[in-house]
């Protein structure tokens, strides 16, 4: 009951603010915390929370999904990936459907399991379909180094990693939002550090708070953003127990060794310069895109699907015509309804 008291105290403080303010929680795990604990209903009506492009499954472009599916269809090949990716609809199929149709698609929890599968199947190409932000990119880098050490010639990585800072820049450059602050991701920031976000305050005059994932963390960050209004913009760190100013140097070094920045297509945001990671020339033997000529065909998106607008914070899930009727977790049209971190899934699962 201790926790309930702390939360009630924070809500009481937040309610003292009467200004209309809009904050964006960038990270999908924050979206989950907010929905799961009904925080939106506890906040006063003048405080609006918008979900941002922080669910890695959701921002994966249809073409990237189609590419994964095209790999899965390659005879003899084993495609390994995270469970979340299986149900994401591409233009015409999903990995789950491909698996039901006989493709060898396997769920792994980390790239190390994919390496193990490659060791056990030396005569078959094994691909790790690697998705995620800076949270999962370091382990992908370590995995590729490990594959080189073990001389695993049948192993390669389909790398569609994305990095967050330039996506926030693109979001602000679009000028659609009128945000009063960002609730910045905890896990990503543990890798890249809190200092990375200083450009938000310096160039855009917008404050941000790096926050953890307990209800008290999210509400604490909201209160810090409220108290920051009216004074100079600043990036603060509510999640000091995990996030350091400079991040995790070992993880950053591994990423730098194996990857290089590239332009990347984001669902809803389009191609953003310098917002993706690709495997650099030194490690190209492990780059599935260089080793296999796979053609996904032209990608098609459902016309009424509002995932793009939802990922930009322009629309709330309930404002999509498909939400809850044609698009449900059992029968998802867009990726935001698929991932456990997706804002549509979070809104749907914990709808009131």
């Amino acid at each position, binding site marked *: *009951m201790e*926790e*309930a008291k702390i*939360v*009630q105290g924070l809500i009481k403080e937040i309610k003292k603010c009467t200004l209309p303010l809009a904050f964006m929680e960038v990270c999908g795990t924050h979206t*989950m915390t907010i*929905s*799961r*604990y*009904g*925080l939106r*209903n*506890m906040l006063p009506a003048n405080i609006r929370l918008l979900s941002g492009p922080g669910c*890695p*499954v959701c921002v994966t472009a249809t073409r990237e999904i189609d590419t994964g599916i095209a790999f899965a269809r390659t005879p003899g090949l084993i495609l390994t990936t*995270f*469970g*979340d*990716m*299986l*149900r994401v609809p591409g233009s015409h199929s999903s990995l*789950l459907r491909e698996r039901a149709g006989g493709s060898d698609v*396997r*769920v*792994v*929890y*980390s790239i*190390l*399991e994919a390496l*193990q*599968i490659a060791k056990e199947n030396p005569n078959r190409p094994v691909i790790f379909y690697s*998705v*995620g*932000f800076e*949270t*999962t990119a370091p382990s992908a880098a370590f995995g590729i180094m490990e594959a080189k050490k073990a001389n695993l010639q049948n192993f390669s990585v389909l790398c569609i990693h994305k990095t967050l800072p330039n996506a926030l820049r693109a979001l602000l450059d679009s000028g659609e939002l009128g945000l009063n602050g960002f609730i910045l991701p905890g*896990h990503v920031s543990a890798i890249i550090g809190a200092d990375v976000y200083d450009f938000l305050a310096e160039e855009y005059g917008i404050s941000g708070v790096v926050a953890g994932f307990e*209800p*008290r963390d999210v509400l604490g960050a909201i209160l810090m953003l409220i108290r920051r209004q009216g004074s100079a913009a600043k990036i603060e760190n509510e999640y000091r127990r995990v996030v350091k100013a400079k991040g995790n140097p070992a993880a950053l070094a591994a990423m730098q060794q194996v990857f290089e920045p590239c332009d990347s297509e984001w669902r809803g945001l389009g191609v953003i310069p310098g917002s993706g990671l690709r495997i650099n020339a030194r490690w190209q033997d492990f780059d599935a895109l260089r080793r296999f000529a796979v053609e996904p065909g032209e990608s098609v998106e459902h016309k009424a699907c509002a995932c793009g607008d939802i990922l930009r914070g322009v629309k709330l899930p309930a404002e999509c015509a498909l939400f809850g009727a044609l698009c*449900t*977790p*059992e029968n998802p049209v867009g990726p935001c309804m698929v*991932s*456990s*971190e997706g804002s549509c899934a979070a809104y*749907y*699962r*914990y*709808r*009131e």
Partner: protein
Amino acid sequence: MDKILLGHGGGGRLSQQLINDMFLRYFDNPVLNSLEDAAALALPHGRIAFTTDSYVVTPRFFPGGNIGKLAICGTVNDLAMRGAYPRYLSAGFIIEEGFSLSELEEIVRTMAHTAAAAGVQIVTGDTKVVGKGAADGMFINTAGIGVLDEHVSISAANAQPGDKVIISGTIGDHGMTILSLREGLSFKANLESDCAPLNGLVGELLRFKQDIHVLRDPTRGGVASTLNEIAASSKTGMMINETSLPLKPQVKASCELLGLDPLHLANEGKLIAVVAGSVAEQVLAVFQGHEYGKDARIIGEVTADTRRVALRTFIGSTRIIDISSGELLPRIC
């Protein structure tokens, strides 16, 4: 000979050998031993409960049990959830050619042991062997018959506003055990399946007669599905307290890691009881005095809020408890 051959299901000498050396040896009872086409059973006058279920779990062996234990417990528990005393089971095996005989023996031995512990007899059975690739190792079907006392009326439709909801112990143990083994998910949760026959516990609860309104075992779909089913059948709602849910720390931690809700995880040795509010504390004491109910807790109550199954979270807010949408898949990060 150490493997199952197609001939073991062919009705000839190999079949007889398998029946004698394996099934009769372990399941040994007069009705089965007579090897008639159908078992003739003596039952008291009145109503019986009758149920069937098929078992296809992968992997077949897991910490805390195997497919055979599951096949006995699952059917025994389904009978017990109507307040019946389970008496007789059938066992049908579909086995893939090439299956290891010693593995089969291990499974059959576990079934015999579990049936004896539950006080039921396996009185009829069948074995089919299918070609390589036509089945994944082994599937088991069991059906069961239980005897219902005249005055017992336990049904998912009987929950009433004001009733208390009791769970017999920690949730999600079986589901998380299987999930951590399946698909090569390498993370180890140091967990055991809770797989257990619950008819003994139910037998003790029946002394509360009409005050036990609903019994259900939250297997596939977990506690979330079971609560929603009860609410839908009874046209009531539920309010569950998150802080009252018994949860092993390793299940809680694994769920957070994988992005899963423990309310969606399967259980194989737990039951949910909906009981009259006036006797709830006494019923709870009976639960806690039983080997399979030591960690029982009152987790919430039935409300008049039709079909709204809600959770009061640990910070005091409420949200609905939704059913899961099919296969549970761990998340990215």
